[in-house]
């Protein structure tokens, strides 16, 4: 069975061929089921009917004026009283009171084991030290010859483009009950971002050396499809709480 057949079939009268529909995958199923086929043909015909009926009609909004005004209001006042953010696992936007968001961020950041609170002067001092160390490292390795042009580009990165720090924020995990949050740090203009990208580029190769690291969820599915399990096999999954802040960086 090929999912194409539901959209592009020979052009006999009454059969739905619409170029505006896009087929996402060219998946072929080895087996064919009458129920599934009937279901899909039914969808096709109903869609066809819908298109035929609404074609040429003037489009109207499906929101009431009140709803529209409320949405506009929300948009104009975002980050004033409410914060609209993405959610974990991409399940749509979430809206929260600003005070709640700040309270939750503070709760996370005031964890003395994982974070240090710095004053503005200390932060500026830290940035100076990092800049110095970064250029020292790059110079040292340029002299030794194990730093390519690309590597030395890290320190000549335009500093004026840099924001002084990364931003901490949270996204809600609305699938959990009670709702918890995931801390995110956006550091796309941090001084060490180019260095981090550079290192990541090389370290990625090491991941391939381990067959226990999978590229993504889809490769897991592909793996499982190939595998044959006997009845005394059992599958389980393990999750780690706060993985990043639990890996001792010093030991690395």
């Amino acid at each position, binding site marked *: 069975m090929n999912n194409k057949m539901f959209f592009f079939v020979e052009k006999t009268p009454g059969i739905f061929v619409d170029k505006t529909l896009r087929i996402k995958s060219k998946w072929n199923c080895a087996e064919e089921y009458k129920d599934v086929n009937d279901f899909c043909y039914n969808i096709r015909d109903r869609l066809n009917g819908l298109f035929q009926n609404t074609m040429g009609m003037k489009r109207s909004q499906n929101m009431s004026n009140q709803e529209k005004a409320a949405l506009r209001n929300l948009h104009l006042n975002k980050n004033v009283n409410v914060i609209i953010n993405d959610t974990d696992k991409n399940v749509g936007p979430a809206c929260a009171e600003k005070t709640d968001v700040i309270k939750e961020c503070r709760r996370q950041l005031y964890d003395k084991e994982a974070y240090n609170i710095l004053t503005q002067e200390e932060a500026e001092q830290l940035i100076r030290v990092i800049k110095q160390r970064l250029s020292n490292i790059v110079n040292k390795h340029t002299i030794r010859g194990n730093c390519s042009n690309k590597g030395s580009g890290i320190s000549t990165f335009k500093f004026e483009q840099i924001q002084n720090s990364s931003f901490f924020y949270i996204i809600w995990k609305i699938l959990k009950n009670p709702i918890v949050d995931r801390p995110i740090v956006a550091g796309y203009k941090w001084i*060490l971002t180019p260095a*981090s990208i550079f290192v990541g580029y090389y370290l990625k190769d090491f991941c391939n050396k*381990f067959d226990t690291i999978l590229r993504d969820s889809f490769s897991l599915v592909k793996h499982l499809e190939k595998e044959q399990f006997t009845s005394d096999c059992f599958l389980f999954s393990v999750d780690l709480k706060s993985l990043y802040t639990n890996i001792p960086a010093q030991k690395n």
Partner: protein
Amino acid sequence: MRELVMEYINVLPNADFIIDLLELVLENSLMELHGEYFQQIFGIIIGTNVAPILANLYLAKLEDSERKNEKQSSNDMSGTIQTLHR
């Protein structure tokens, strides 16, 4: 991590450089929230590009070493699970 990169030093000509940079990245972070500044002092710095890769490598290494232990002591999976709990 250092020992891992050193294992492949022949493959990676600039391993020293990578290690130095990695150290710098992991030791220095600065994040801002509402005018306050914070520095992460424990764990892999959240938000760096290397964080997911490092986390993967760390777990893979952990699994490797646990498997070796398992073979030596012919223990069951409980060893691994205990380690993960720590």
